[in-house]
C-alpha cells in the first residue's frame, strides 16, 4: 500500500483522540544542531480542521490492527474497518516532511496493539529514537504508551518523548470492565504512577544539577557538563471518553481530581464519545454530547485554576450532572448568592476568581488596576469586562446592584436571555486557545472571560 493510502487510514483512525496539543517544553531550538525543530513554550496551532480543532501535531496510529476489542474503538478487532500499518521509517519521513513545510509542531503517535504490548511499544519507541538520534529532530513528540509494556520500554520512551500519555479511557473501573474487558484499571493506574515517578526523578536531578553548576565569569569559556537525563519534560496526560457509559459528571470530576492530585497529570482530556462507522451494538447511537464535554472542560479549569474543589462544582440536587444551560461557575454563583455581590475594590483574589464572567486574566488586571484607583463602572468597560454576567454579581464605587435583583428567582432566566443576545462565544475548551502572541501564559486561562 502506498504511503498516501496508509496515511488516510491511519490518520482517520487516530482522529478520535482529543489529547493532541503540544505545550510545556521550553527553550529548545536547533541552533548548533544538525537537524531541525524547536519548542518554545506554547505550541502552535498550524491549522484548524472544520471541526474547530487545532492541528498542531501529526496525529496518527502506527497501525490500526489490534488484538483487543474495546467497544468504543473504531480499531477494535471486531470492526470491519480497513487496516494498514506504517513502518517506523515511513512515520519518520512523514513527520520530517510536514515539519519542514511548517505544517506541524511534531508528532503524536499511538498504535493499536499488535502481537504483544512490548512489541508494539518497541515500534513506537523506535520512531521516536530515530527522529531524535538519526535526524536530531528537536520538535515535539508525544507517545501514547501501552500500560502493560515492560518498564524498560517506558523508561526509554520518556527519554525521547516530550509527553507521554496513558489513556484512562473511561471514568470508572466498572465502565472499563464493561466496554474494554481486556484492559485493566489497576494496571493503567500503576503505569501512570511509574511515569509520574520517572518525571519526578528527572526533575529533581535537573534541579540539583542546576544548583551545583558553576557560574562562569563573563568572557570565560562556558563550562560544559552532561545534560541531566530528560524524561517527558512536557509531563503526562490522559484521555477519558464521555458519554459511552453511564458515569455521571460528578464521577468524572472525582476521577480527574484524583489523577491531578495522585499522578500530577498535566491535562485530562475529555472526549465526547463520537459515533464511529461500524459501531458496536453495546453503544449509544446518538450524536456526541459536545456540550457536556464543553462543560466538563470548564469544570476541569475551575479545579485547576480557580480554586474549586471537585465536589463543589456539581451542585446538590442535580443528580450528579453539570447544568448544560449555564457554565459551571455561573451555576455555582446562582446557587450561592449569599456570597454576592462581590466588591471588586475589596474582595481578595480567591473570591474575585469566583465571580462569573471573570477569567484569571481579568482578575489579574483588576488587581493591578485597583492598586492605583477605586474601580468604577467605566473602568470595567475600559478593561472590556463589563458583561451582563459580571455585573449581576459585583459592586463598584459607583455601582451597586439591588439586593432584590440578586435574590430574584428570575435571575437565572434573565441571565440566560441576556447571554443569548450577547456574543456567546463558546471557545472550544478541548483545544489550545488562540492569541498567544502577547499573553502566552495567561491566554489559556481565559475560558470564562
Amino acid at each position, binding site marked *: 500500500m502506498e*504511503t498516501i493510502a496508509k496515511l488516510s487510514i491511519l490518520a482517520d483512525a487516530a482522529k478520535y483522540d482529543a489529547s493532541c496539543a503540544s505545550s510545556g517544553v521550553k527553550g529548545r531550538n536547533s541552533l548548533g544542531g544538525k537537524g531541525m525543530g524547536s519548542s518554545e513554550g506554547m505550541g502552535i496551532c498550524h491549522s*484548524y480542521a472544520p471541526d474547530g480543532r487545532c492541528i498542531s501535531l501529526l496525529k496518527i496510529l502506527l497501525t490500526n490492527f489490534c488484538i483487543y476489542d474495546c467497544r468504543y474503538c473504531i480499531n477494535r478487532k471486531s470492526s470491519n474497518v480497513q487496516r494498514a500499518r506504517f513502518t517506523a521509517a515511513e512515520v519518520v519521513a512523514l513527520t520530517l516532511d510536514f515539519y*519542514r513545510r511548517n505544517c506541524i509542531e511534531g508528532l503524536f503517535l499511538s498504535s493499536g496493539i499488535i502481537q504483544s504490548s512490548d512489541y508494539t511499544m518497541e515500534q513506537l519507541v523506535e520512531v521516536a529514537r530515530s527522529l531524535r538520534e538519526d535526524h536530531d529532530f528537536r520538535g515535539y513528540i508525544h507517545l501514547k504508551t501501552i500500560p502493560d509494556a515492560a518498564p524498560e520500554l517506558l523508561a526509554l520512551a520518556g527519554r525521547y518523548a516530550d509527553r507521554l500519555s496513558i489513556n484512562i479511557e473511561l471514568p470508572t473501573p466498572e465502565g472499563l470492565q464493561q466496554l474494554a474487558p481486556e484492559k485493566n484499571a489497576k494496571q493503567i493506574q500503576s503505569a501512570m504512577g511509574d511515569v509520574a515517578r520517572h518525571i519526578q526523578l528527572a526533575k529533581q536531578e535537573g534541579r540539583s544539577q542546576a544548583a551545583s553548576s558553576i557560574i562562569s565569569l563573563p568572557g570565560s569559556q562556558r563550562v560544559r557538563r552532561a545534560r541531566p537525563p530528560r524524561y517527558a519534560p512536557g509531563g503526562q496526560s490522559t484521555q477519558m471518553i464521555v458519554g459511552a457509559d453511564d458515569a455521571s459528571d460528578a464521577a468524572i470530576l472525582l476521577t480527574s481530581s484524583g489523577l491531578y492530585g495522585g499522578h500530577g497529570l498535566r491535562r485530562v482530556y475529555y472526549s465526547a464519545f463520537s459515533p464511529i462507522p461500524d459501531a458496536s451494538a453495546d453503544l449509544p447511537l446518538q450524536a456526541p454530547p*459536545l456540550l457536556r464535554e464543553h462543560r466538563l472542560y470548564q469544570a476541569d479549569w475551575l479545579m485547576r485554576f480557580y480554586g474549586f474543589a471537585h465536589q463543589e462544582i456539581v451542585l446538590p440536587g442535580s443528580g450528579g450532572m453539570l447544568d448544560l444551560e449555564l457554565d459551571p461557575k455561573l451555576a455555582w454563583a446562582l446557587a450561592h448568592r449569599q456570597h454576592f455581590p462581590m466588591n471588586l475594590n475589596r474582595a481578595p483574589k480567591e473570591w474575585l476568581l469566583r465571580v462569573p464572567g471573570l477569567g484569571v486574566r481579568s482578575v489579574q*488586571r483588576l488587581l493591578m488596576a485597583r492598586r492605583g484607583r477605586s474601580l468604577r463602572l467605566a473602568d470595567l468597560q475600559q478593561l472590556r469586562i463589563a458583561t451582563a454576567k459580571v455585573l449581576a454579581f459585583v459592586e463598584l464605587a459607583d455601582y451597586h446592584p439591588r439586593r432584590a435583583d440578586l435574590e430574584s428567582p428570575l435571575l437565572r432566566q434573565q441571565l440566560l436571555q441576556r447571554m443569548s443576545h450577547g456574543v456567546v462565544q463558546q471557545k472550544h475548551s478541548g483545544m489550545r486557545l488562540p492569541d498567544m502572541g*502577547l499573553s502566552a501564559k495567561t491566554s489559556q486561562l481565559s475560558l470564562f472571560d
Partner: protein
Amino acid sequence: MDTNPESSSAVSRDFLVIELAQPDDFDGFRQAARVLLALNAEPHAVRWRFCQPLAQQMPTQDLFAADEAGSVVGRALTPDALDQLPLPPTQPLRLGKSQLSTLRLACCHNLAGRFALCYRWLHRLQSDHRLRLDALDSDWREIERLAKAAGREIHKMHAFVRFRPVPGTEADGQAMQIAWFEPEHHVLRAASGFFRRRFPNMRWAILTPQCSVYWDLEQLLLAPGSTADQAPEPDAGEQLWLTYYRSTFNPARLKEQAMQREMPRKYWKNLPEAVLISELVAGARGRTQRMLQT
C-alpha cells in the same frame, strides 16, 4: 560641543520631522525618542515618517497629510543626526521590560500614527511618573491594542507560513524552502527569528509584498518585496498534507465557526489545505448520518 547647523535649524522650526529607517524601526524610534524627551519636544511638534528601503514601488511614506509633507521635505532628521544635538542633562526615562516589548510590538502595527502615539505616551510619562502604573490610561490601552494585534499577526505567521521545496541552486544540492505570506502588519522581521531557530540547517525564504527574508544557513538577509506569482507552485508532496488534513477531520463534530475564529478567511488564500474546507463541510452531515445509521 559641535552641533550640526542644519539640525539645529530644524529644531527651531515649528516641528521636527524624524525619518526612521524602516516601517518597524523601533530601535531608531527609541534612539530618537531619547533625544526628543531630553529636549522636551512637544508631541504635536514632532512628525514621524519612515523609509521603505525594500519595497519595490513604494517611495518613502509620509505619516501625515501630503501638503504638509511637501513643506518639510528635506528637513527630516534621522535618529543618528538627532544624536548629534547637545542635550541638557536629564534623568533618562526608565521603562519596565514588558512595557518596552509592548512598545516594540506596537511599532510593528500598520497604523500610521503608531510612532506618534508611542511618543506621546512617553512624553506624558516623563512629566507624570504615575502614568507608568496606570494600566487604564487611554493612550496606553491603545498602545496595548496595537501591540496585541501585531503580536497576534506574528503568532499567526509562525503558524500559517507554508514552505514549498524548490530545487536548490547551491553546490550542496539542498532544496530551498520558499513561502509566500501576506502579513497585515510590519512583522516579517519580528517573526523571522523563530524560523531561524527552528530551521537553521535548511535554506529558506519568506516572500512578502513589502520585503523578503532569506536564510542562507549563516545569516538572515533582507531582500525586496515580491509578488504572489513569484511564489512556488504546489509540489507533489503537498498531497500528503492535504490527505492528512482531510482524514483528521471528524465530521460528527463540525464546528465551522470555531475554525474560522482561529483561522480567519484572510489567511485561506495562502494555506494549501483551505481549498478542502468547503468540500469537507458540505459532506459532513451526510457522513455523520451514515455513521449513526450503521
